[in-house]
């Protein structure tokens, strides 16, 4: 094995139809100055085999769409990925995806192609987004050799930004759900968590409009400002 071949790892084995679908995936759109309401958003949540960013794998993907200011129940995404090489880890106690469910799942390449088709050119929203972005990015790279360039906004940042009156420190999804008395159908199920996150987002979009944040662009700017302030050393 030469160094050369090691550097140019073989492309994953996609068939012709899959290659074609991959090529047809739309480029991510820019977050522009259209209205916040008319923007289509995809809210995503993943269940993974663990929290290790380099070793663990995506087991299932749940996503819902916010379009025209509403969650649309005719656009729901839900896939369990077939993983042959996962060992049973303690995280099974959280997401409840046993070896049986995972063995019965979809081919990862097919599922991820479906997911990216579902996403289209829309920006993504997730709670604790950096984790989901990394895990999803790695899975796309491994299975499709695809580099995801979509914007991913972190709901864990948007929530305190848009609700300055709420004092929750280091709040997790559960804390925010409790605060707004939202009920997730079944916590730690990717789809149910995505829906709960989307409900939280509907509230946050409504708060954004009250603060005259009317475009995705404005939302991004405020988010960047807020993050800079958070990171600025305090005296």
């Amino acid at each position, binding site marked *: 094995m030469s160094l050369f071949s090691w550097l140019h790892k073989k492309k994953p084995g996609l068939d012709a139809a899959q290659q074609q679908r991959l090529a047809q995936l739309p480029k991510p759109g820019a977050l522009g100055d259209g209205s916040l309401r008319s923007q289509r958003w995809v809210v995503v949540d993943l269940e993974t085999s663990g929290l290790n960013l380099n070793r663990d794998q995506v087991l299932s993907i*749940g996503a*819902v769409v916010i379009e*025209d*200011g*509403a*969650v*649309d*129940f*005719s656009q*729901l995404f*839900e896939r369990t990925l077939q993983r042959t090489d996962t060992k049973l880890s303690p995280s099974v106690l959280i997401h409840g995806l046993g070896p049986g469910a995972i063995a019965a799942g979809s081919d990862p390449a097919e599922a991820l192609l479906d997911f990216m088709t579902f996403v289209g050119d829309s920006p993504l929203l997730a709670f604790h987004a950096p984790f989901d972005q990394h895990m999803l990015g790695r899975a796309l790279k491994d299975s499709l050799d695809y580099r995801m360039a979509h914007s991913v906004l972190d709901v864990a940042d948007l929530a305190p930004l848009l609700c300055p009156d709420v004092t929750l420190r280091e709040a997790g999804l559960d804390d925010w759900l409790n605060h*707004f*008395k*939202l*009920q997730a*159908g*079944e916590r730690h*199920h990717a*789809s*149910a968590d*995505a*829906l709960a996150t*989307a*409900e939280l987002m*509907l*509230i946050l*979009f*409504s*708060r954004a409009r*009250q603060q005259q944040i009317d475009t995705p662009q404005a939302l991004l700017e405020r988010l960047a400002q807020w993050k800079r302030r958070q990171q600025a050393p305090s005296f």
Partner: protein
Amino acid sequence: MLQNIHGTLQFLQRFPPFNQMEQAHLAFLVEQCQLRFYGPGDSILKPSGGPVEHFYIVKQGRVVGERPDSADTTFEITTGECFPLAALLGERATRTEHKAAEDTFCLLLNKPAFIKLFALSSAFRDFALRGVSSLLDQVNQQVQQKAVETLGTQYSLNTRLGELAMRHPVTCSPHTPLREAVTLMHEQQVGSIVIVDEHKAPLGIFTLRDLRQVVADGTSDFSQGIEAHMTQAPFFLSPDHSAFDAAIAMTERHIAHVCLVKDQRLCGVVSERDLFSLQRVDLVHLARTIRNAPRVENLVAIRGEIGQLVERMLAHGASSTQITHIITLLNDHTVCRVIELTLVEKGDPGVPFSWLCFGSEGRREQTLYTDQDNGILFEARDAVEAAEIRGRLLPLAQHINQSLALCGFSLCKGNIMAGNPELCLSRVEWARRFGAFIREATPENLLGSSIYFDLRVVWGDERGCEQLRQGILDQVADNRLFQRMLAENALRQRPPVGRLREFVLTRKGGEKATLDLKVQGLTPFVDGARLLALANGIHANNTLERLRQLVAKQVIEPLDGAAYEEAYHFIQQTRMQQHQLQTRENLPYSNRVDPDSLNHLDRRILREALRQAQRLQSSLTLRYQL
């Protein structure tokens, strides 16, 4: 099925009508839905928004309705409830602005999907078409279903008489010899024969009771035509009347057979026995036993049976109106019999008098637990004669009061009883007293008018009482000030529903928080209907009857009248079921209910019913500019 579809479906299945819909239809509904969020004060639908395009289900939060002309909340819609059915079906804009009262999520179904669902699911269609009334029907069905379980019978008092009656009643012509007619009855094994003309119109009825009379009279000529012995012009109902109507008619008229007539032709006969086998409710027998009771002690014993009768009727799905009607009827019989027995025992005073009743008894709205509210009315030429007659009647009245107490009519704490000299008055004295109530609106007089102006004769001549009532109506119609005072009085008891909470409850000591069904639920309707009836020359006493006549006179809108009636009816029904439960568990009887002890559907309708009471009150506020 996708997790989020499944989760939403499970959520919906907690509420009617979704809990009655097929799973496939429900899944279709969810898949077509959008989920939207509304912050506090956000307008969801408004009259200027054009025809309604979506069907809304509240997933979480609270939606309030506000009429454009006032900022008052007209309704509240919470988790699991839907809107706006009337506007959606009528393809028009909503008449009420719908606003979110707090953070609210709604599921929105678009109109084409709504229409498709409407066509697919009969449970959904039924609900959409009939709105809250269909909820009430569901409650009634539940009540009756329970009855079927406990009594193993599928019959109810609402059965059409046409389904109950003998198809081919035994008949003969007026000239048929007595012997031949009796032979016919014997051969057919029936207790009655109807005498008809050539067009089958009933001329008379001859029953086994009549035969007994014939034999007792010593008639020996059995070849005589039957028309000499029959009861002429027999009482009849149409086949569309209910078993309940027949039971009431038999009780009131002391008859055992009712002819069914359609287009002036006899088409059936219903006997007391047909009804018994139907309901096992021995109403007619009970009434007859009361009227023939030889001593007061017998009446005391019969009281217990009335309780059982009510229990059975409630179990058979009788409505609260039917039951209060029957209790009133049996109570009236008891009062009459007590008076008759007292007259026999103490001797006739030699002056005609009428026995009056007031309050709920006057309105024919008694439940089993009742106080005495009564008085005596007689005619006298002048004050001297009145005092003299009073002297003769009072000992008798006091005796009657005591006997009634033995029969379970508790003595009135406020001494509103005929044995009180102030309530044993001549017609002129009563008229003067009532006139003072209307002229001088002191708090005591207002309270008095709310009791005495529902007066009615139970025993004796009714004409004097009618004259008194006409006098009251004439004076009240003329006296706007008094009407206003009555209106203020009618607003005293506020229905216990709040803007922020489902119910406004009161807590006493360490007890659970409760609300009073009678004082907070029924009284607003009773007071409101009395005021409007008195002000508009309506003679009726019964609250529901007053509401109906107010609609007929166009004082209130038909839709409002129907809503008030349904609401009143439901609160009364809940109250009675509550009493029955307390009796069964040997608890002291109380009108207080803990809404949490009701099932979801009942609680929701109770809240809606109390809101109707609130609406009636705000209409009074408007009418009398309070």
